[in-house]
């Protein structure tokens, strides 16, 4: 016990350091941050100008692929997301596969920054069915060290996903992909033609209004926006409102970002009608997550909005409804 600002307790220090053992996995970011800012650039494997269309394809091994994209703000408070994803990725897969939410998930990761001031405003990986997605995560450049701007270039990522993806789940089976956007800022009002030309390389001449690109995006993806609920800046209400105006009930307010993998898995489970919320929370415990409270809170609005979308006639009277606290299953 000292009167310094921070605890010197040996045991809590050990715990803090242990939570960081995934750190060195971000070798690319570590290397880049040791160089001049002018030299910072996106890793080849995540460069939006390379292999310009991201494909999610069926294969003999994965005959019914289902595309899932997770694209997160790599700045500010969201900087811990890649680490969380990397540590919990096996658990996410475990839930999706073992609990039967999806048979053949293919996951793609991406990073979002601010095209007006960041060196690396957009990073997009490939759809992968195996642990190669780990490599993509490891190559993500974590440019952000804080800041506090209100806006990031989410619209640029939405543009890329709308126009630069090709997915068998949609093209062969009419099932849209999943897109999870994670962030704690707002998007700019337009996709700027100049940024598209510079960062993605498309020959676009006119700016595209945000609402237009959102509409286009939703023809290809079921889009969810996850916003941290314990935001430090006291303006979470405005941010949440902004995203609700675009994605309605698909905005998920999550109090603890460490639970992002479980939240994504259960959201998919709910949408696939594989589970109701109570079952999903039980699955979390089965797989060894201790985040049922935070995930339950985050997904309760979504789960209940799904249940009221169902007409009373279709409900099995005396079924799920009479179980206290149990969300309605479709």
């Amino acid at each position, binding site marked *: 016990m000292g009167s*310094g*600002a*921070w605890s*010197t307790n040996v045991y809590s220090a050990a715990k803090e350091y242990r939570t960081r053992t995934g750190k060195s996995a971000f070798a690319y970011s570590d290397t880049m*941050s040791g160089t001049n800012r002018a030299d910072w650039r996106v890793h080849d494997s995540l460069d939006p100008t390379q292999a310009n269309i991201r494909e999610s394809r069926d294969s003999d091994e994965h005959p019914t692929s289902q595309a899932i994209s997770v694209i997160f703000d790599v700045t500010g408070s969201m*900087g811990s997301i890649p680490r969380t994803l990397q540590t919990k990725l096996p658990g996410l897969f475990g839930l999706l596969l073992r609990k039967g939410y999806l048979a053949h998930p293919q996951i793609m990761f991406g990073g979002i920054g601010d095209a007006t001031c960041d060196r690396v405003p957009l990073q997009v990986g490939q759809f992968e069915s195996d642990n190669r997605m780990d490599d993509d995560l490891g190559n993500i450049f974590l440019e952000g*060290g804080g800041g*506090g701007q209100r806006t990031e270039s989410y619209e640029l990522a939405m543009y890329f996903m709308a126009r630069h993806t090709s997915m068998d789940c949609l093209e062969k089976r009419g099932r849209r992909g999943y897109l999870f956007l994670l962030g704690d800022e707002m998007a700019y009002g337009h996709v700027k033609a100049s940024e598209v030309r510079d960062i993605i390389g498309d020959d676009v001449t006119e700016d595209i209004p945000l609402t237009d690109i959102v509409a286009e995006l939703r023809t290809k993806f079921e889009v969810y926006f996850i916003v941290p609920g314990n935001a430090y*800046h006291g303006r979470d209400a405005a941010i949440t409102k902004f995203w609700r105006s675009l994605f309605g009930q698909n905005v998920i307010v999550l109090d603890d970002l460490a639970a992002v993998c479980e939240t994504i898995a259960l959201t998919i489970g709910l949408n696939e009608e594989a589970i109701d919320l109570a079952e999903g929370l039980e699955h979390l415990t089965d797989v060894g997550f201790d985040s049922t409270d935070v995930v339950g809170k985050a997904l309760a609005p979504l789960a209940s909005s799904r249940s009221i979308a169902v007409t009373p006639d279709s409900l099995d009277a005396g079924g799920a409804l009479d179980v206290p606290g149990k969300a309605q299953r479709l």
Partner: protein
Amino acid sequence: MNDEHVIVVDLGFGDAGKGTIVDWLCRDGERSAVVRFNGGAQAAHNVVTDDGRHHTFAQFGAGTFVRGVPTHLAHTVLVDPFALAGEAAHLESIGVGDVFDRLTIDERALITTPWHRAANHARELARGGNRHGSCGMGIGETARYALAHPDDAPTVGDCRHPKTLRRKLDAMRERLGTSDWAPDDDVPAHDVVDLPDVDDVLEVLGLFTDTVHIVDGGHIGGLLDRGPVVFEGAQGVLLDEWAGFHPYTTWSTTTTANALAILAEHGQRATRLGVVRTYTTRHGAGPIPTEDDSLTALLPEHHNGTGPWQGRFRVGHFDAVAHRYALAATGGVDALAVTHVDVVNTGDASVRQGICGEYRTDGGVPWAPVPPDGHDLDRQARLTETLTSITPVIHDAPETAEGWLDEASKLLNVPIAVASYGPTAAAKRRICG
């Protein structure tokens, strides 16, 4: 000041606002790193961002809120791997998630351990009512032990060699509470309690080694070549181990000397920026000639509470005499950064902030302290005695902030580079330079 290295030092007893000035210097996008060059985890440099986040920087540089700005802890810093973990966790919780990726530590730096802290607490307890205003973090004991046992004092580099580290930790644990801890000890051996096992400490130091980037002495040269660096001083010149008012000092060189030595070694120069508040503060015991309790209520302190070891936060009028002494002790500065300009005479009209331009002795003769010529703690102790007997001559401060800045600049004979009207970078106004 745009394209040069800058050294930021506090011309008082600490707490002047070095953190907020360092943060501001880093906001222009031109500073490529922050280098800490003295003190250790007892530093408490508060920074508030424009969006309302607050962090007390202790070992991470106060420029850490700015994207991509790394921190380097030079070999003259006393590193506390235990406090570092908690500080990183807080930074992560407020949105700065990559702090360890941006931290490098010189392998020669000494580390502070729980045994240093235990010795620190034992010594302050033995002093009873005569505490020296220690922060209780074990900084002084780290320096004291290293002087007494230079070959046995654990360093950051030792953390990479578990056998060496264990030998040093075992030896330290043996000496703790005995007269062998430091031979010229002025405090008798004292019972120390509540100590962790060597194994537990070793585990933390192993994890620390896996987490941070430990570099050799050449690293700083590369940093200096890459672009303008901010040297962030800790504590205040008036607490300097040799020039401060003994025994109420710290075991650290708080002047620009360490930073200038590092720069000289690499053939580089820097602008020296001295930070002062519009009033005098002191956190803990020791002389503060212009102390005035009525100011304490007028000038609430948000980030400095009463510490269990350090004592309470004390306030006095702006003391130009003490600051002139600090300027002489550090060999001068090129410009001033003045903080808390927003509170100049804005409070209760019945309590006026004053300015002290002169001390007088009992006989009414003007008197000013002069820095020591070399290392003479007996002389400094006598100086401390004298300071308790003099009378500060305090006159009302000018009504306006502009008038105040003008007078402070004249009294200290240094131009003002930046004035701070609030805790955030947006509340800083560049005056010149």
